[in-house]
């Protein structure tokens, strides 16, 4: 039988738990196992390409997550706008960004969240030539 992948399957490749084949500190690797964990979450985020779906999500976020079969932790991360958890639970940054855009958040805001800075601090580091050592 084909069981749905569980969230504990595979090696988490988050910034906090680097591992697997490529180990670059502070660098999540969106690999096959991560993509399996995140498939339903990413499919939901992909659905936000349509204005109708964006409206339906906004009307009842939890119900919309249920419709796409998200795991409870994934639903919670979405409801809480816990961006780091979304990445850890298999979200691809390009998909997660679609939700951020709906909230009017920029990629620099997300960068600040991932690095423990404000959006302004994160932007200032980029303007100063980028973060060299993470």
């Amino acid at each position: 039988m084909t069981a749905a992948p569980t969230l504990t399957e595979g090696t988490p490749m988050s910034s906090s738990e680097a591992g697997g084949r490529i180990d670059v500190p502070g660098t999540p690797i969106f690999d096959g196992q991560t993509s399996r964990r995140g498939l339903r979450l990413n499919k939901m985020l992909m659905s936000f390409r349509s204005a109708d779906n964006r409206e339906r999500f906004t009307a009842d976020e939890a119900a919309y997550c249920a419709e796409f079969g998200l795991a409870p932790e994934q639903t919670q991360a979405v409801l809480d706008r816990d961006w780091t958890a979304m990445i850890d639970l298999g979200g691809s940054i390009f998909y997660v960004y679609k939700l951020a855009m709906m909230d009017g958040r920029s990629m620099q805001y997300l960068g600040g969240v991932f690095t423990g800075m404000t959006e302004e601090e994160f932007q200032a580091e980029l303007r100063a030539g980028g973060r060299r050592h993470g």
Partner: protein
Amino acid sequence: MAEVLWGLATSHVPSIGAAMDRGKTEDPAWKDLFDGYAPARAWLAEHRPDVAIVVYNDHANGLDLDIVPTFGIGTADSYRVADEGYGPRQVPDVIGDPDLSLHLLESLIDEGFDLTVFQELEVDHGLTVPLSVWTPDPGDAWPCPVVPILVNVIQYPQPTAARCYALGQALGRAIASYREDVTVGILGTGGMSHQLAGSRAGFINPEFDAMWLEKIETDPSALASLSREELIRQAGSEGIELIMWLIMRGAMNPRVSTVHKHYFLPASNTAAGIALLDNRPG
């Protein structure tokens, strides 16, 4: 036979397109980037090809994660501009060249590069921003028909840099064997160094980018020897997009000449580079 006139390597950061779409190209935060494009645009306006091949990746707009083709090619008459979540960019839809697409596909498959065929494809900023870098004011239509070539750079394992370079070389042979006498421009898109997620988000590596900008002209095989891990370490988890420049470069002559280069940061979270290469040696 068809002939490659030039290769244009450029970042495809969405905010570059947004800055143009919103008339911000003279803003202090952007001016140097667009000033840096000007010499390339002027030269390209004098060297308009009959058709362009754009090597790019989709960002959750034309494709989702149900199917992750390592390499793909569009064979459609036209490609609609995607709604990425805030309405489509107000730029022309992209006209295709299915005859050339199908010729390239057959030739590449005969050489062992089994590309996935896209008969329908919506194109996102990965393709339209490079077209805007080339042609800021397209009016009703882009300068010429376009053949999209897609590369998976989002989900590990991405194709190796060596495989991309080899695909480019096969693409060059495929172009040369086309029965029509047409001229071709090739765009390799993405990069330069950047990382969007994780505690290393915001990582930029100007030394690596400078090396890449030089060697894309002079020593692409050295770039093709870099491993995925090395690319992610040195260019960031999204900087690995640079492998798409090697497909462009592989399709060109071993010796080419640089028309113009420019480097700018930051464009959003990314170091933005441009390298315009004339397929004739200098």
